[in-house]
């Protein structure tokens, strides 16, 4: 159940931030949403605790497959985040391009 609460918190926080003014908030909102997905996918493998190393019995260890997926996802999320930050940096002096449009 900790996974559900964590996902709910992260999604709510991320959703709030992406709906705000200012690109920085939007980018960081996406970071939070990315965290939420990491937790969700990992939770999909089951809730067992225990490290996925041989020697730990299959009963207690976490499922290694979602971990491999999530590991990939974390790096991709990082790549996307820094690219968004690059856009933010290159785009304008104003940290809040968005605020200039009608809201």
């Amino acid at each position, binding site marked *: 159940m900790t*996974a559900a609460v964590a996902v709910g918190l992260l999604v709510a926080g991320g959703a709030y*931030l992406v709906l705000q003014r200012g690109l920085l908030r939007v980018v960081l909102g996406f970071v939070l949403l990315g965290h939420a997905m990491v937790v969700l996918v990992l939770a999909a493998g089951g809730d067992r605790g225990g490290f996925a190393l041989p020697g730990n019995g299959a009963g207690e260890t976490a*499922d290694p497959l979602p971990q491999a997926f999530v590991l990939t996802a974390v790096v991709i999320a990082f*790549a996307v985040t820094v690219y968004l930050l*690059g856009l933010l940096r290159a785009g304008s002096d104003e940290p809040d391009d968005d*605020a200039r449009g009608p*809201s």
Partner: protein
Amino acid sequence: MSLLVSLAVLGGLAAGAPLLTRALGRNAGYVLAAGFLAVAGVLAAHAPTVLDDRTVDWGVEWVPELGVSLALRLDGVSLVFSLVALVVGALVMAYCCRYLSDTAARGPVYPLLTLFAAAMVGLVLADDLVLLYVFWEITTLCSFALVSTAGAKAAGPGRHALVVTVVGGLALLVAVVLLTLAAGTTRLSAVLADPAAVLDSPYAVAVAACVAVAAFTKSAQFPFQSWLPGAMVAMTPVSAYLHAATMVKAGIYLLVRMSPLFAGQTAWSAVLITVGLTTALLGAVQALREHDLKAVLARSTVSQLGLLVAVIGVGTATALAAALLHTVAHALFKATLFMLVGIIDKETGSRDVRELSGLRTVMPWTAAATAVAALSMAGVPPMLGFVSKEYLFMGLLSADVTPWAGPVAGAVAVIASALTFAYGARIVWGAFGGPVEQPDLYEPAPAFLAPAAVAAAVGVAAGPAVSLLDPVIDSATTDALPGSTPPSVYAWHGLSPELAMSTATVAVGLVLFWQRDRVDAALQRLRLPDGPALFTRGHDALLALGGRVGAPDRSPTLAAHLARPLLAVVALGVVGLVTVGPLPGRVDAGDPGRWLVVALLAAAVLGTVLATRTVALVALVGVTGLFVALWLLLSGALDVAITLLLVEVLTAVVLVLVLRGRPLRLPAPGPRRRPAAVLAVAVGLVAAGATAALTGRRELSAAGTFFLDRAEELTGGTNVVNTVLVDFRGLDTLLESVVVGVAALGLLLLGSATVPHPTDTDDVLLRVGTRLLAPGMLLLSAWLLWRGHDQPGGGFISALVAGIAVALRQLASGTVPTSRWLRPRVLLGAGAVLSVGVGVAPLAVGDALLTPFSLLPSLSSALVFDVGVWLMVLALVVAVVQALGARPRHELEGAAA
């Protein structure tokens, strides 16, 4: 085969037309006309077969998966329509040779007209529904392109014509699909041979409606008729060929072709007769109201097409024979009249029927040809138009939808024909009557007049000699209505009801002509709907509606775009709440430590939401990430936790680079704070609920069990997660490296707009500390990479460690790393070559892509693959540092100014 050759010759002429015009100028038309006649001859050579009620077929598979074939078939109906298209086409081409200037002839007119002829012949020869549809659309596009050659003034009418006919084309496409579904084949002859399959299917009504709409749009029937007069902005040959003789007959052809299915069905008859007669009457009234000769002819075409539609709707053998005969007659006299009006327009400079006077003296031959064609249109004996009109009356009288349908249809046709007589008589009067007002006019060159004169002469001669057409009409009628006995076609019927109707037509028509000034005044007062204006209004309204529908997508605010997927998630949650049934019980490890982490996480998330300063926001997001990493660690995902931790550190470094010199305060939350909060809470609840409902309810997956049990044995690695990444699911990892590489390249492109930005930092601790730490971090990275297969570590983690070393160095020294080996392009390239090379190598010995193999006794190819991943991730970090560590150019320019 000769059918294919015919089409190929026409297509070849269309393709070669630009070359011909370059060599011959406007006289290229004669070559094209000869080509048309040759093809007509080839088709006519099959007449004995066709008249014997057999068909000529050719076909080859086109899309075998769908059962679609390039099938052509020549029967009576297609013989009539293709010969009309080719013979009138040849006349128009010959006419073009004198109508066009050499300059205009080098334009797109010749190729387009020839392409149109090819498409029209293809349309009537097609024996496959899909093929029919394709040719149908080609004629539409040719028409649009030809109308558009008239320049700017054609924009509005051209669009009107295109939109209306394309709508009809779409209706035809729907009909084609439904017919194929109902009959199980796209072969037209097979569909028509088994009417029961279509009529008994649930699609029967829809097919009939779609076919009718397609035909009504193409043949300018009420309420779609107003595009045709507008299309008259096109030059005269185009109007004569497409918009009088052939293209508008495509709808007539379609209705005739579909008659085996629908003829005799009450609703079909009722709709066709009603629409056709309405159009005939409306068109005739409007024609009589016009003074511009070309407009008169355009309205008249609409009216005549209406009569054709009505008589096809009657659906008896007599009626269909009448439709076929009148199609030929109308093509002849209407193309003639258009060509002559073009001549008169060029010679006198006017197309106003009131200004024409006394042409018989100065242009006797032109006047004579005009008069002959106009009398044929008016239905005066002994012209072909008279004979075909007699049959039209006969056909309409045979309408048997209701007992009174025949007489009513006949009466309406008489009125429409009387109006036709009246405007026909006005044209004749303009040509013959009145004093000579322009005495210095002279007859056009014989070559200019010849095509029209030939057509006019044929129209006269074919009246008395109409029985020569009898076998063709007979055969075509039998094809259009299998099993029927068509009437014999001959010129003189004796004293029949039709003759009485013809007499009435002429009598009323004469009265209308005699009282023409009064009729004209009355008609001018008549308020008729303005078709083009209605179309424009509807068109504009449609575009405005599209604008409103699309408005949210043009919002400049990000939130407007991002809110919609979030709303969709909420909607999905509601759907889930309603539809998801009872769930299996939870399999929870239950761990108080993680509850503590989640509580801290809640505080951190709340902090990010409330943060008003940049630094606070960045720090709190970082803290949130750390708590997530902690949660991952406690849940057993060691590698993921380490990776996330490193990513958080790197993200923080990058943020510091990005945010240098920016306002410390975040923009104040606007009025959207409250709705955003509501939406965020709703999405959060859905996400939490879905996670609770859909996870943690099963034992370890089969795949997970397999990896845990067999990974070490199969790969020699003991870190199961890493073996999944590099041994079992290498392609995922490779593609992920590609994403990383693309992001790195994107940043490099962004960075190219920037210049290096040396900063001095007086933080001695940072500078010295970095100097001391960096070599150690690089060593640590190498060690993590080496041991990754067995212990937590691997390409991602070690690359991030190395990346942090690079980034810190940048932060501390303010200089972009310039080492030759630390260029992102070099790193990217090397990484891609390594990982792809190792991945592709197994293919050489016949293994699958990315199969791990042993390089040395203790060195698996998986390690080399991981080194490739390491290089690409490191490339991303270096690219980030280079792109974001520099100052954007606009900052520099701002500083200089």
